[in-house]
């Protein structure tokens, strides 16, 4: 039932993936449209707030502070959540998290089945964390059928596809494509084509499950250490359904989801909706603490997962990656993402945050092409609500990748160039050499200007799409010296 997983360990390199995806004109059109719309929406609501920069600063400080005291806050969260009737589990990595969730789901389903016969099913709220660990595949292998309840995730699941954006996973699909999927998978031959028709179909399809399935799995936007509470930010109401109606709720969250206090939500509930969907506030936020008699699930579990986050924490230059609140604003402004969409990044985390998070979650063993999937334009840093300096982290990770690769052809060329730059004499010699070397590649155009249409080897990437004007006969310093000699 689950589609192919976006697995950084097996995904093609970014340049390769991009090469193929760039040929998909429909995808590019959808991504262009979606990112343009959301960029404008975000800009409008951000402009409304006179204190946006102060909010960003506070967001950055609170997240940094949290990471510095992460051990204290994790323990505090566990204590308070447990006191309120929740059960807290700890998972060192994805495998352990999967095992815990599958076990808890099996136990919950078995308990339900003892009361009355029911299929082995669970409901899911969209959670990047559960996708990161491939939870659905593990559940299915254990004989449990997970139903995605977010409209976009439903589209992805029914279409056996992969998500392409953190907040709007089916951004790469248009209504035509969605219509085909629903018509087929929901058995609705007369399904209308408008977005309203499609939403209505999804509503009815899922409502039946909401009112029936007693076990649900969610992620979390924020874990509140002070109270042991959990906050989920959503639009459609499926979150509320899954958090309120089932008898057992299992929440999976990375240890980086912790925030210190209830009051800190005053910052993040301003930063997140405006950055993510360009709204003053998203339709629904749910905050609950442990178990409440007569209201919501009777059994509540939280799985706190590390999965390489502590490793990222240990890296001084890149630990700011953990400050991310998963708004997706960076993806929406990224000029690279705009061309390729998210699947090119080969991971559930795409765009600028994906380029820095994914390789680090893989402990730099995989996804080494991602830190280079950026022109370092800085648009992401400008919109990040918690001021993650993504370009600087990209440069830092590029250094790590280069170190890992050792002496490649590129590294040798770079070392040679560095040596050349260490001496004026060598630099001028290299300039002369360059002019000599390019001479055979130069063709004069109609105006007598020389152009190069083809460059060999590594440099071929340039001439794949551009021409290169021939080097001028005289460098600047040649001209300067001549001017000096000639007295002007």
């Amino acid at each position, binding site marked *: 039932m689950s589609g192919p997983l976006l697995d950084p360990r097996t995904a093609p390199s970014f340049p390769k993936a991009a090469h193929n995806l760039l040929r998909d004109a429909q995808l590019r059109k959808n991504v262009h449209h979606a990112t343009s719309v959301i960029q404008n929406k975000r800009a409008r609501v951000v402009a409304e707030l006179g204190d946006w920069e102060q909010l960003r600063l506070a967001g950055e*400080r609170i997240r940094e502070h949290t990471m510095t005291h992460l051990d204290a806050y994790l323990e505090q969260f566990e204590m308070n959540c447990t006191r309120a009737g929740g059960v807290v589990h700890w998972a060192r990595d994805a495998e352990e998290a999967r095992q815990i969730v599958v076990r808890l789901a099996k136990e919950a389903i078995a308990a339900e089945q003892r009361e009355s016969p029911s299929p082995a099913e669970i409901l899911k709220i969209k959670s990047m964390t559960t996708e990161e660990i491939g939870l659905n595949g593990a559940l299915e292998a254990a004989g449990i059928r997970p139903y995605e309840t977010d409209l976009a995730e439903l589209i992805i699941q029914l279409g056996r596809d992969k998500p392409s954006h953190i907040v709007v996973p089916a951004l790469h699909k248009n209504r035509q494509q969605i219509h085909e999927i629903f018509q087929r998978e929901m058995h609705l031959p007369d399904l209308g084509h408008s977005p309203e028709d499609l939403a209505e179909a999804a509503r009815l399809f899922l409502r039946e499950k909401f009112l029936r399935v007693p076990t649900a799995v969610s992620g979390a936007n924020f874990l509140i250490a002070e109270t042991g509470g959990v906050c989920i930010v959503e639009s459609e109401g499926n979150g509320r359904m899954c958090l309120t109606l089932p008898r057992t709720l299992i929440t999976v969250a990375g240890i980086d989801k912790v925030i210190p206090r209830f009051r800190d939500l*005053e910052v993040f509930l301003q930063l997140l909706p405006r950055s993510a969907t360009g709204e003053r506030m998203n339709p629904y936020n749910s905050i609950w603490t442990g178990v409440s008699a007569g209201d919501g699930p009777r059994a509540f579990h939280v799985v706190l997962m590390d999965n390489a986050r502590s490793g990222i924490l240990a890296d001084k230059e890149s630990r700011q990656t953990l400050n991310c609140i998963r708004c997706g604003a960076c993806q929406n402004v990224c000029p690279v993402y705009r061309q390729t969409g998210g699947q090119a990044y080969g991971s559930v985390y795409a765009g600028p945050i994906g380029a820095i998070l994914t390789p680090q979650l893989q402990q730099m063993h995989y996804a080494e092409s991602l830190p280079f999937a950026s022109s370092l334009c800085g648009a992401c840093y400008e919109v990040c609500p918690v001021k993650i300096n993504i370009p600087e982290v990209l440069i830092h990770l590029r250094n790590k990748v280069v170190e890992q690769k050792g002496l490649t052809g590129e590294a040798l060329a770079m070392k040679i160039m560095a040596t050349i730059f260490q001496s004026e004499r060598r630099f001028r010699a290299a300039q002369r050499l360059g002019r000599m070397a390019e001479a055979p590649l130069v063709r004069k155009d109609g105006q007598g200007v020389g152009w190069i249409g083809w460059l060999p080897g590594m440099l071929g990437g340039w001439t794949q799409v551009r021409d290169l004007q021939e080097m001028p006969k005289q460098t600047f310093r040649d001209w300067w010296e001549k001017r000096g000699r000639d007295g002007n």
Partner: protein
Amino acid sequence: MATETSGAAKTEILRRVRKANGGSSDAVAAETAWNAIAREYRREAALAPEAMLDLLEDRLRDYDAHVVRVQRLEIAATVARMLTESGKRRIIVPAGIAAEWLPEGFEFVTDTGMTAADLDGFDGVLTGSTVAIAETGTVILQDVARPGRRAATLIPDYHLCIVEASKVVETVPEAMERLRATSTRPTTFFSGPSATADIEMTRIKGVHGPRFLDVILTI
């Protein structure tokens, strides 16, 4: 068995985090540092109460919520009018809702912990509110007395919410402050009817949760 593994995992994770940070923290150190975080964003209202109500109304309408503003004594009559206009008759209400809010001629049933299937049979739900945020057009319900259990405002397709002027604040920080004393209660923020932007980034209303939200603002 599971607890042992979880215990080992917890120990290991905390060890890694402490190593990464070059030392351990504790509740006292965290609290001191938290108090020292400089916050320069807005935390107070700038608008007068009347202007705040105007703003709230305006923002609610932005989300296609139907809003009317009335005097306290007119609540029941307004409820009657709105229910009639939308053809709703059988309405669920939380225990402890003000009797003077409920007009004659409709079936108001108190929520006594019904099943989801039962809740599905009602035309709508009527509640008060805990706090409302003017700047964002948000109504917040905490499970205390009048708002009631969360499922009741989730399953019926129509939600009629009575927001008293005394519950309205301008900014998000003010709202969080009001909620703080009861912060562990189940809490739901509503900003317009449910919506999705997943189909070509068009905001479509009415996926799950009530598709129709009416608000009576009372002075």
